[in-house]
């Protein structure tokens, strides 16, 4: 048995039945990281030594029956924009190369309460801006299915590490598709929860009204379990919902009979790769076989979502990233003449090209004389997008689309064409704009064996419906049993 191939729920059972020890598991993952990190480059910071020490201590406690937490001793990987006390949180930026957070993000507190072991901080596009993880200041993460391809982004390190069995599960963050798109590219499960379901406290803000932390896992059950851990009301985040806690594993019924699935035709038109389309068609057929009611409908407003997204996200980012100013915990230019110089040079040298591009765009759309034409208008369109989705959910339980118009592309193929890179978000951004939950699960592979992802979109706080729909398909197509990453070079 290869420990690292097991899902978290399988690991959990094997710890309980004493078939495996916590130290066995952590050791297996540390070995796997040592074996594969050279190829995959998923981590900014590895904590393998630390993790082994923790595992040994926990094992002792476990043997005495004193270890608390349903997931005690299970390892995890954390996207490097989630603050971890005493451990570097770099956002894959030169700006925060040496930043050590003095506090834990709320989700990290939850992880620690469960005695889950942090294996390290995972690579990402700088400040979560990008769709390929190529904009990391430190390294380019490779797609475990084909090392010449990108893992997607911005949570590329998280998705690649899960796909490569270097961590059993991981936390990512999703502002416009940053969990779902890399999950799709890497053939794993990625869930972006409803805006407000998971506390954002301690997530380094990119676009505050869009950001959500979520799980990247091997299967849907693991996603439901990780959501159980991180979903909670947090007094430190006033945008977090105070709904009562739900056990998301209870909704996994493996049954979609009578489930109404809406297919927005705009998501299957021009710009969507033919193989992706074909794979999605097959998936839709599968759902029909499973007893779901499928209906095509129009979500015309979606065509404005991408522009709206880039205006709102960049506007908020231009303000959120102001604090990285060379004064306190950030990179500071070594030579400067005056205050203006510190700002200019520190920010010019500390930020990468994509971050600068978005700050400039965001500053522009908020500036006086342009505010009404861009930012205000985008907010209006945002309301229209929400309204259109609401209408959709009057008729359908979930909405099905591709996660990304293409499979993972070649490293370097889009970095010189930002607009083309932005188009990779076209299927995912409207979900953030509307604050809805979305999940990506693998539904097939293309001719080259690269995974294709299906996205399901749910109504606000209807994660249970969404998870059950995804789970039922997963059980029916058995993707993980049929396909495994090959690390092709």
């Amino acid at each position, binding site marked *: 048995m290869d420990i690292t191939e097991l899902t978290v729920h399988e690991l959990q059972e094997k710890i309980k039945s004493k078939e495996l020890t916590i130290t066995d598991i952590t050791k297996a993952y540390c070995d796997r990281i040592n074996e594969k990190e050279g190829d995959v480059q998923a981590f900014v910071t590895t904590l393998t030594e630390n993790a082994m020490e923790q595992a040994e201590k926990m094992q002792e406690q476990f043997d005495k029956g004193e270890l608390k937490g349903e997931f005690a001793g299970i390892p995890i990987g954390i996207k490097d924009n989630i603050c971890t006390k005493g451990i570097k949180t770099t956002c894959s930026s030169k700006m925060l190369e040496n930043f050590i957070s003095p506090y834990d993000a709320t989700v990290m507190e939850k992880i620690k309460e469960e005695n889950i072991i942090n294996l390290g901080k995972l690579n990402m596009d700088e400040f979560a801006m990008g769709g390929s993880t190529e904009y990391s200041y430190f390294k380019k993460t490779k797609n475990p299915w084909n090392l010449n391809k990108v893992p997607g982004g911005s949570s590329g390190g998280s998705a690649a590490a899960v796909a490569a069995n270097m961590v059993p599960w991981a936390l990512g963050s999703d502002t416009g598709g940053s969990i779902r798109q890399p999950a799709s590219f890497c053939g794993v499960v990625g869930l972006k929860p409803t805006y407000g379901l998971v506390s954002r406290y301690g997530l380094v803000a990119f676009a505050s009204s869009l950001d959500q932390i979520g799980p990247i896992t091997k299967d849907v059950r693991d996603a439901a379990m990780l959501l159980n851990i991180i979903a909670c009301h947090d007094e430190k985040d*006033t945008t977090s919902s105070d709904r009562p806690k739900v056990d998301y594993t209870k909704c996994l019924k493996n049954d979609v009979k009578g489930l109404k699935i809406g297919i927005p035709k705009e998501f299957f038109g021009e710009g969507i790769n033919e193989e992706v389309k074909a794979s999605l068609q097959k998936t839709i057929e599968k759902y029909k076989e499973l007893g779901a009611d499928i209906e095509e409908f129009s979500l015309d407003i979606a065509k404005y979502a991408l522009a709206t997204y880039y205006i709102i996200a960049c506007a908020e980012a231009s303000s959120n990233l102001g604090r990285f100013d060379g004064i306190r915990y950030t990179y500071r230019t070594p030579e400067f003449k005056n205050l203006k110089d510190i700002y200019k040079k520190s920010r010019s040298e500390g930020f990468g090209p994509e971050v600068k591009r978005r700050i400039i765009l965001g500053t522009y759309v908020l500036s006086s004389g342009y505010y009404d034409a861009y930012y205000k208008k985008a907010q209006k369109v945002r309301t229209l997008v929400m309204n259109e989705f609401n209408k959709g959910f009057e008729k359908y339980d979930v909405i099905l689309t591709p996660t990304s118009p293409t499979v993972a592309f070649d490293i370097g193929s889009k970095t010189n064409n930002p607009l083309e890179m932005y188009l990779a978000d076209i299927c995912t951004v409207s979900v953030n704009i509307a604050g809805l939950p979305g999940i990506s699960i693998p539904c097939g592979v293309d001719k080259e064996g690269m995974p294709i992802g299906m996205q399901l979109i749910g109504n606000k706080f209807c994660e249970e419906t969404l998870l059950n729909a995804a789970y039922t398909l997963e059980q029916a197509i058995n993707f993980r049993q049929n396909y495994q990453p090959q690390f092709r070079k």
Partner: protein
Amino acid sequence: MSRENYEVVIGLEVHAELSTKTKIFCSCPTEFGASPNTHTCPICMAMPGTLPVLNEKVVEYAVKAGLATNCDISRDSKNDRKNYFYPDLPKAYQISQFDKPLCEHGYVEIDTDDGKKKIRLTRIHIEEDAGKLNHDEFGGGSLVDLNRAGVPLIEIVSEPDIRSSEEAETYLRKLKSILEYIEVSDCKMQEGSLRADVNVSVRKKGDSKLGTRTEMKNMNSFRSIVRAIEYEVDRQIDVIEDGGTIEQETLRWDEVSGKTFSMRDKEDAQDYRYFPDPDLVAIKLSEEYIQNIKDSLPELPESRKQRYLEEYGLSQKDAKLITSSKYLSDLFEAAIEVCHNPKAVNNWIISDISRILNETEMEPIDIPFDAKQLGKLVILIDKGTISSSIGKKVLVELFENPRDPEDIIKEKGWIQISDEGAIKEVVLKILEANPQSIADYKGGKDKALGFLVGQAMKETKGKANPQMLNKMFIEELKK
């Protein structure tokens, strides 16, 4: 043309620090004067990933201020970000309010030589204070102190209704006393918890169009505000009289030279890129919430003044002086509770206490002694335990080292010896020691009596009741 041909137009933007225990978006204390950066946390230091949570007290205090100044209270308000770079602003944006302030369309009524006048308020909004830069402390660099970052402020913006420096001062004093009465700000100007941006313009009398204004930022004393307005009005009139035009600019008032200097002109005007703060939810206030605050508002200075006239028979002038400060007024009322002598307490406050405050440039709130101590002082004089001139000395002691007045006079030996037996003992002792003086007195030298009394005072270290001494010496010498 002279100054009489011009009309002065002034508008004030007053910033008042709210006296909440904790900051506006985190739970750090707001207390003034702590060592640098000790009242900070990841939130007010703007560590990556932190989020603001609005302190509900701040909203309550701002609504109180709005109601006390006759404002309409917004049921649906929000926070906005004002973006700019400066080291004392760690997030690189200030959370403020832009187009939906909490309070709008109010007024403050002031007394002028021509009677009562309403100064209209455009708005009152809530925002966070910035930190402070300490310059030149270490090798000419600047050090950032973020203790003040996130201390809650209200900004009270007046319409350009003020027509002179005197009116500006009267308005500010009135506003200050209102804020003190409703206990939302301690209004300590020297600590910067009340400061004003002053907008000044002039126009020829009869002109309907406002002149170009200049703005003087962060003024924190009545004296400099009055001086700065006077200077700026003269300067603007001179420029216009010389055929020039006024530039819209931000000025810095220099207290030492008594002049204003240009800080930045319109061209440098910053674009703050205001937008709604996505980290904070809208501020929705219910009718019930607003009504509850309305019902809890304390008596305001105007009505207290009226009560003093009727209840205690104070003069207009005295009542106005005492009620101008909530602290003085509270002191007045509480001391009366102790000594039941309103006239005496009034006299102490308007004469000696006010004089000492003026001389030491102290705010009433900094008076170190309490009402009980002041009341006891009045009782001691009323009972004849001390004379009123000793009373003045006790008051000075109370300012320097406040404690029970009885302890002060005991300790200082200021209690009069009025016991006949004790006085007689001293008189006999002094007479026995000074036969020559007895002879002198009997020989017609009245001066000898003064010498004997002086000796007795020396013997008793000033404690003997001088009238009694005098009387008893005469009696004994006549024997």
